[in-house]
């Protein structure tokens, strides 16, 4: 089945937050593209709205691979039925920080926290657990966050 992780390449989970901040969908597609070019298989986990924004934008699945429900992903990782090499958590609110801390606790993946939004610094202050942080004030314009992501270049690590 197309999009399923292969056993030969690294895998990455993208944990989407609430899609109310526009840059999330754009940066998620950009990150998926960069990961795939580095032979890293991306899997997206989000709520229905966040996932649907991506699926509708990429109907032929040029970028997207597997897309799964966020609660299902948390359950499978918690139950040790699923895990990834890399995990990117999109954060612009308190719930995003909670999901990132959860991923840090239940998954063995290297954790990246992608923090954005009008008040991104408020969320940055709450992230006291180990992660590689990629943060920028970005709401409608994805370029500041893209720049921060490019500087870290997690696909090359």
């Amino acid at each position, binding site marked *: 089945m197309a999009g399923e992780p292969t056993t030969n390449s690294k895998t990455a989970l993208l944990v*989407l*937050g*609430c899609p*109310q901040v526009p840059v999330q969908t754009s940066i998620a597609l950009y990150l998926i593209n960069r990961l795939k070019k580095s032979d890293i298989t991306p899997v997206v986990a*989000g*709520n229905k*709205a*966040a996932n649907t924004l991506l699926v509708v934008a990429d109907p032929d699945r040029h970028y997207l691979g597997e897309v799964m429900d*966020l*609660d299902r992903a*948390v*359950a499978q*990782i*918690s139950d040790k039925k699923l895990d990834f090499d890399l995990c990117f958590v999109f954060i612009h*609110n*308190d*719930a*995003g*920080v*909670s*999901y990132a*801390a*959860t991923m840090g*606790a*239940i998954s063995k993946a290297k954790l990246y926290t992608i923090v954005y939004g009008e008040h991104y610094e408020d969320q940055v202050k*709450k992230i006291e*657990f180990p992660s590689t942080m990629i943060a920028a004030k970005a709401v409608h314009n994805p370029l500041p966050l893209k720049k921060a992501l490019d500087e870290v270049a997690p696909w090359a690590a």
Partner: protein
Amino acid sequence: MGCVESMNYEIVLRDATFKESRDYIKAHFKEFIDVQPGFKVFDVHVIGLPPIAIGLDGDFVIFPYTKPCHGTFLLRVEDHEEAARLRALKK
């Protein structure tokens, strides 16, 4: 976590931060246990910064339930068996 909708729950706090939820449990319930993220309460894997506080009040279990767009809810559910199971973990 679809089973939450089928539970007979009461919302104690809504649209809270995770910290508000934890502080509320510790301030309002004499009895609570600390668990790690991913711990299963009923069929819900709890989300949050460790440690996550779960309140116990008789047969009532009070636990956080986080949604990406709506923050953290504190839910109160009556279930003798689940309260007993959680209480046993304290020993």
